[in-house]
């Protein structure tokens, strides 16, 4: 018997709670800390999911005292928490575990101060020496912070007074080479098992529901393959523009921002084989097998299989909006893509010959993330031509956001004396049966890091595979002239070339309109 085991927890049906730990947020006064990290921690505290033995240390250059930081974070929680109004006593209790250190990530002294404070916290709050370092920093500051942790010995491989883990925000690298360099640097300090690359998409309930839909329902598996599926579409559409992120977006573009991570991860969840168990490594192994099986593109194949676009001025949500090149911090002759559509093939037994079409874009008509599994038409329709007008092949639509749910397109008889068949949509909305105050993705993911469950975090081999898939596209684009930008108006569903891409092999294939 483990003498340290808590007998009150044994066989308890209650939720998983974190072990004692202290969390250090580098970039603790930044936008992500305000909008997501601290509100998520407060919600966890409110729901009794944080341990009593817990503390947060924000680290940033802004000159705050502990009290000033607490006051600033209180405003953030009041503004961004999903559980408002703030619960006074719970906030006070949470805030008493909230600390701040003024310091730059490129100064050794900062890490000494963090180490001293963590020692004090461990003594006073019993955090057991467990440390979680959250890199809420712009990418150029990652390396310095990681190295600073390692050199100072406050965490990483040399640290043995508890576990130490690091959370890294996307993007993980700018291209394949820089990702590998970053990985080498990170794993010099932290072993891979302690590195949690956060992709907030994977923390969404609706994304996790893809796994539930596929592997909790026996009816889909027999038809989930190239015999029955004509093609798959993954759409990540945004109606917003770049939202004051011109500097970032000019160095990223849609392919790095969405396709390399969110879209390929969704593709992997759709295409993966059933894992034997839901153990983290089993799930991650199956996902990476899909990415390994994605056919690589290079040279002219990129030109044929990938469409890029950039929005011009137009109307979105009833408002006139400027062209990308007119946005702040964007070069007037920028060739950065705000739209990408691509065709991928998964070279394995299950999916041979079944195209996966991915698209993402800014300033599209509406915000929608969804996966469409388009089935092949019935092999023979015994109805007359007129009778089957309006009948389309079956499609299963997994709506990720908004209005999370599932739509199944079926053929049905039109009521009346004649045999007329039409397609009808059968909609299931999660909200009609499970609507609840869904946890924010960050709440789920932060709790998983503390518990040490990496299932929903991309492993390095998965990230590397994704970069290997994307890098030849980036190489091709950098060596060939771009299309004439802008090539779609804000408020349209992307450039015409994207429609041609999906219909070039089969004229009846088209993008589903979300």
């Amino acid at each position, binding site marked *: 018997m483990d003498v340290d085991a*808590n007998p*009150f927890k044994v066989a308890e049906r209650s939720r998983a709670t974190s*072990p004692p730990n202290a969390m250090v947020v580098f970039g603790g006064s930044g936008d992500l800390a305000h909008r997501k990290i601290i509100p998520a921690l407060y919600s966890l505290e409110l729901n009794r999911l944080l341990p009593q*033995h817990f503390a947060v240390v924000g680290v940033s250059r802004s000159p705050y005292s502990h009290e000033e930081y607490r006051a600033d974070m209180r405003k953030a929680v009041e503004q961004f928490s999903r559980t408002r109004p703030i*619960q006074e*006593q719970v906030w006070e209790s949470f805030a008493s575990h909230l600390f701040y250190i003024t310091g730059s990530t490129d100064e050794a002294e900062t890490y000494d101060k963090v180490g001293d404070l963590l020692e004090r916290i461990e003594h006073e709050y*019993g955090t057991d020496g467990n440390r979680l370092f959250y890199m809420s920093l712009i990418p150029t500051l990652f390396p310095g912070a990681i190295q600073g942790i390692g050199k100072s010995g406050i965490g990483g491989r040399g640290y043995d007074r508890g576990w130490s883990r690091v959370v890294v925000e996307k993007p993980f690298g700018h291209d394949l080479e820089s990702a590998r360099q970053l990985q080498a640097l990170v794993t010099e300090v932290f072993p891979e098992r302690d590195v949690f690359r956060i992709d907030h998409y994977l923390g969404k309930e609706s994304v996790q529901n893809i796994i539930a839909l596929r592997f909790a329902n026996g009816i889909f598996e027999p038809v989930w393959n190239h015999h029955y599926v004509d093609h798959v579409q993954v759409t990540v559409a945004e109606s917003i523009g770049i939202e004051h992120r011109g500097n970032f977006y000019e160095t990223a573009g849609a392919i790095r921002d969405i396709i390399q991570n969110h879209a390929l991860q969704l593709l992997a969840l759709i295409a993966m084989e059933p894992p034997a168990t839901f153990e983290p490594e089993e799930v991650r192994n199956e996902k990476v097998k899909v990415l390994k099986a994605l056919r690589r593109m290079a040279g002219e194949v990129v030109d044929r299989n990938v469409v890029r676009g950039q929005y011009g001025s137009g109307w979105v949500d009833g408002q006139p909006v400027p062209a990308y090149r007119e946005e702040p911090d964007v070069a007037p002759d920028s060739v950065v893509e705000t739209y990408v559509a691509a065709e991928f093939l998964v070279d394995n037994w299950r999916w041979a010959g079944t195209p996966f079409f991915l698209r993402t874009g800014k300033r599209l008509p509406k915000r929608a993330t969804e996966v469409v599994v388009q089935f092949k038409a019935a092999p023979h329709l015994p109805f007359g031509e007129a009778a089957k007008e309006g009948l389309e092949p079956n499609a299963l639509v997994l709506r990720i956001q908004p209005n999370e749910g599932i739509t199944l397109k079926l053929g049905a008889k039109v009521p009346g004396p004649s045999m007329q068949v039409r397609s009808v949509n059968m909609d*299931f909305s999660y909200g*009609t049966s499970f609507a609840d105050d869904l946890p924010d993705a960050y709440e789920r993911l932060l709790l998983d890091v503390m518990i040490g469950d990496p299932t929903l975090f991309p492993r390095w081999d998965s990230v590397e595979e994704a970069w290997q898939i994307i890098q030849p596209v980036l190489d091709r684009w950098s060596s060939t002239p771009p299309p004439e930008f802008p090539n779609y108006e804000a408020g349209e569903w992307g450039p015409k070339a994207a429609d041609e891409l999906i219909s070039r092999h089969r004229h009846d294939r088209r993008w589903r309109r979300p």
Partner: protein
Amino acid sequence: MSTVHAPGWAFEEAAPPKVEEVLARQRHDQENGHAPLMRASVNNLVMVTQSRTAGQRALLTIESLGARAPSRCVVLIAEPPSERQRVRSWARVAHHRHSDTGATDVVWEEVVVQTNVDPRHLPAVVLPLLLPELPVFTYWEGTPPFADEVFQELASVTDRLIVDTATFGDPLADLNRFDAAARSRQPAASDCVWSRLTAWRELLSDPFNGPPLRGTARRARRLYVEAVDPTAGLELAGWVASRLDWRLREARAVDDQYLASYDSPAGGAEVRITSTLGSASLTRAELGVETDGGEATVRIEATPTSLVTTVRAPGFPTARRFGMGSESNPLAAELEIFGRDRVFEAALRSASELADATGA
């Protein structure tokens, strides 16, 4: 066909065979030209009451479940049998709009059945009104007639029986009967009081996950509880005793207290449950634990808005923490549990032993 109105919603009286028809039509026509409501079925809830007034209370409870309302709620008003037996039923579709987006509806259906048929026929009245092939939760208001035919018959079509021991007429004696029912193989049983104790249990447990109390729980020597609901005090004590392998040695009732002594791995433990007044199930719980430096205590106290945990351990600063209590509607939490809850059943067994030993 007459119509009964409830605030915001319309019940239509319909004979049991017509209930599905009414619900289908309401789903289709619902509300001022809005799109037809989609129904996604998850489970059934049967709420058994003995009077029309209690039935009305049950409807308010269902409404307060909001987003967690079961797909089909059947409120069964089981009146005493009489010679002129009859069944009346009403039905309506209800929905809850998500507060943030305003776009998503949680849809459920309410069916009220008022009857005085012989109890052995009640399953025949209820069964046709349930959604097929979905779990059936039965919530019994007040003390179920454990020995009566009506209970046996309805339990036979139930997957999970939910009671609220805080509403039991004779709490201690009824707790024993409930324990006996829970120990039978079917259905799984639970208690809303147990859900109200969730926050207390989590907060009492949490200090033992880390220093300085890690590894000391089995050295607990005393538990003092101040209970508003007697069964809440007994179930908390039962939970501690069952988790820590305490064996009841003796117990007695003195004035407004239950006093008990246990054999425990630490050599003995005492429990004192004092009845008190308050707005929560409990007002205070304190666990005393033997440590190398002396006694450490974990105390939880209810304030009007939260629970306060205070941990005192020799040589360590006193730690205080505020946390939210369990959710306001314990029935909602109970509806999320399928199957048996072994921890609850062990706690109930231990609580029942304690109630029995005090001579209740």
